[in-house]
């Protein structure tokens, strides 16, 4: 192994892989029973965080950035004049094992540009996973990217060795995809997705009958959409998410704010900034649907198709539905406590437990860790809550914005708003 060459390859292929925001290593629960190497813990571990604040859990690289496609939002597109490189199967295995042994990573996240054709590329990815599992007795986490159009046979094999499989929808809508990724079509993505979904269901069914069934993608599948490259609204995006959660048993939907990589009149200009606030709001909306019992149409509807950038979607919902509030902290059901702005799942659970012992007041909530700067306007205690006085929408909204500062909105933006 030539150290300089391997370093150069790693730099090129890590750089090209970084736009995939997913880095989760959770949900696999693979144990190490036979003196092998590694295991995966159910909750996942972030071994480091990049300077942009993202979790580094897996060695996230492309096998190669050579690509026959020309998707205009992608750095590795065929027509882009950049340095190209390709790892050998052995090199990827060696890096994974050596990084893992030093506790740098939870495992491997392997994706690739498409060379020759879909199956040729997919076969190479599967071969790496197979080698790690069978030859190196590796039980760490493996996430393989599915190549659109890969055959069922290869997907079957991929499911045996990988913990998670994912295929990126890339753009939330089919029309967006046609415009920006003319070589790709939605169906090539949906077919493998459907296959993985059925494989997982079949595995779970067989598991009920037989004691030992080979694992099939135990951490499920996920997907990613790029936000802000084409012109869809947030309502369309969360409807898409809702659809995939419901119909494809998707574990996670990732939203990736578009980072300008090329000048093209079909794309936002190179000078636009990454829509980080919008991306953050989409994640919040996603969490509301998955953990807080909100329905997509409660978060947005045709009259309000974009998420409010100034306030989070739960607060926005509360302000639109003031008739629900104030919520009686001592008696309201858990589901309703969960809807109070500033109270998350952990605090809500603690409240429901602690209130059995005594009457809770604002002081208690602060100590429990609830974000009372928002919550206090929406709660009724047994004692008088002076904050309830300002419950008229216009006033309340401004009032809360002034008292809570989003860490994502820069002061300069605020000033522009002020004078704009």
């Amino acid at each position, binding site marked *: 192994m030539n150290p300089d060459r391997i370093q150069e390859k790693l730099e090129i292929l890590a750089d090209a892989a970084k736009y995939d925001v997913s880095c989760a290593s959770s949900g696999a629960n693979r144990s190490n029973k036979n003196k092998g190497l590694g295991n995966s813990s159910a909750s996942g571990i972030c071994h480091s965080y990049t*300077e942009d604040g993202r979790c580094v859990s897996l060695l996230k690289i492309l096998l190669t950035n050579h690509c026959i496609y020309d998707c205009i939002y992608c750095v590795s597109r065929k027509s882009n004049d950049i340095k190209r490189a390709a790892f050998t199967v052995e090199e990827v295995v060696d890096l994974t094992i050596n*990084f893992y042994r*030093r*506790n*740098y990573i939870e495992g491997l996240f392997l994706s690739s540009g498409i060379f020759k054709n879909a199956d040729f590329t997919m076969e190479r990815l599967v071969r790496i996973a197979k080698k790690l599992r069978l030859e190196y007795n590796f039980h760490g986490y493996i996430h393989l990217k599915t190549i659109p159009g890969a055959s069922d046979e290869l997907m079957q094999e991929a499911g045996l060795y990988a913990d998670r499989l994912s295929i990126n929808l890339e753009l939330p809508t089919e029309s967006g995809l046609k415009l920006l990724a003319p070589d790709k079509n939605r169906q090539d993505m949906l077919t493998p997705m459907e296959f993985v979904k059925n494989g997982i269901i079949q595995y779970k069914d067989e598991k009920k009958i037989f004691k030992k069934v080979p694992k099939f993608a135990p951490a499920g599948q996920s997907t990613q959409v790029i936000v802000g490259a084409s012109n869809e609204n947030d309502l369309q995006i969360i409807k898409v998410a809702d659809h995939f959660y419901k119909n494809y048993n998707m574990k996670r939907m990732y939203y990736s704010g578009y980072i300008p990589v090329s000048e093209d009149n079909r794309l936002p200009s190179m000078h636009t900034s990454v829509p980080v606030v919008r991306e953050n709001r989409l994640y919040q909306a996603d969490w509301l649907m998955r953990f807080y019992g909100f329905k997509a149409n409660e978060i947005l509807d045709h009259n309000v198709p974009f998420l409010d950038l100034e306030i989070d979607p739960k607060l926005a919902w509360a302000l639109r539905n003031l008739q629900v509030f104030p919520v009686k902290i001592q008696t309201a059901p858990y589901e309703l406590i969960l809807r109070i702005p500033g109270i998350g799942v952990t605090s809500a659970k603690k409240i429901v437990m602690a209130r059995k012992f005594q009457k809770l007041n604002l002081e208690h909530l602060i100590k429990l860790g609830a974000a009372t700067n928002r919550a206090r306007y929406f709660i009724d205690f047994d004692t008088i809550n002076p904050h309830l006085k300002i419950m008229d929408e216009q006033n309340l909204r401004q009032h809360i914005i002034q008292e809570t500062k989003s860490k994502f909105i820069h002061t300069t933006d605020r000033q522009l708003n002020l004078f704009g």
Partner: protein
Amino acid sequence: MTTLVYDESFEGLLTAVFHVFESKLNAVEIVRKSQFASPLFADVQEIISDATKADRVLKRLHEQLGKESVRMLVYSFFSEDLKMEKHVLAAIRYAIANPTKNVWTDFANPDVLQLSKYTKSVGREKHRMEAFIRFEKYKDEIYAAKIEPDFNVLPLILKHFKSRYQDQLWVIYDIRRNYGFYYDLHELQEISLENIQTLKQANADSLHQDEMLYQTLWQRYFVKTNIVERKNTKLHIQHVPKRYWKYLTEKKI
């Protein structure tokens, strides 16, 4: 006021708690040996750790409050906080006084809340250590990691590393508390270095010939996987506090 002095062990602490109930002591404080400064007029008793007595306390709590209560006690103990004994005793007293209630979920009680805070802090650092430990490979094929955690979490993370790294020799050493554990492919042994300088000054000569290559590759990977356009230093430091940088391969350059 009676002062019970124990030997710094978890067992010792529980034995002291047992003694409080057995002797029906009211005005009492439990103090670990290293923190004990002999007062002039106090009634001081030295507690001798007793596994049977300690177990009885644990069993009683386990029956009434479940597994989680035991975990909270263990984690609180490893916080090494100076007021830890006071809150542990008060919370146990509160539990014993309310035998039919699951008081461990009464977060409005200051002692229960404090134990849950200890548990959270210690649990967070345990998780951080599982993430941030960086092994370096030495010539003798041993993977060694140095740590200096705020809390004494080493005993809590061994299980994780033992099940993960079964086919390599490794050592994790707490420099601050001067002890560590060595895994010899079969079992764990507690070790304590007489000359801690050797570990602190381990230089390139004693490292395996490939070690620096993989460290460099990891550092370069860390740089390249970052998206410059999204730089967010505040968030970065929030996730990886500076006090951990010293032993992080990717941050120590």
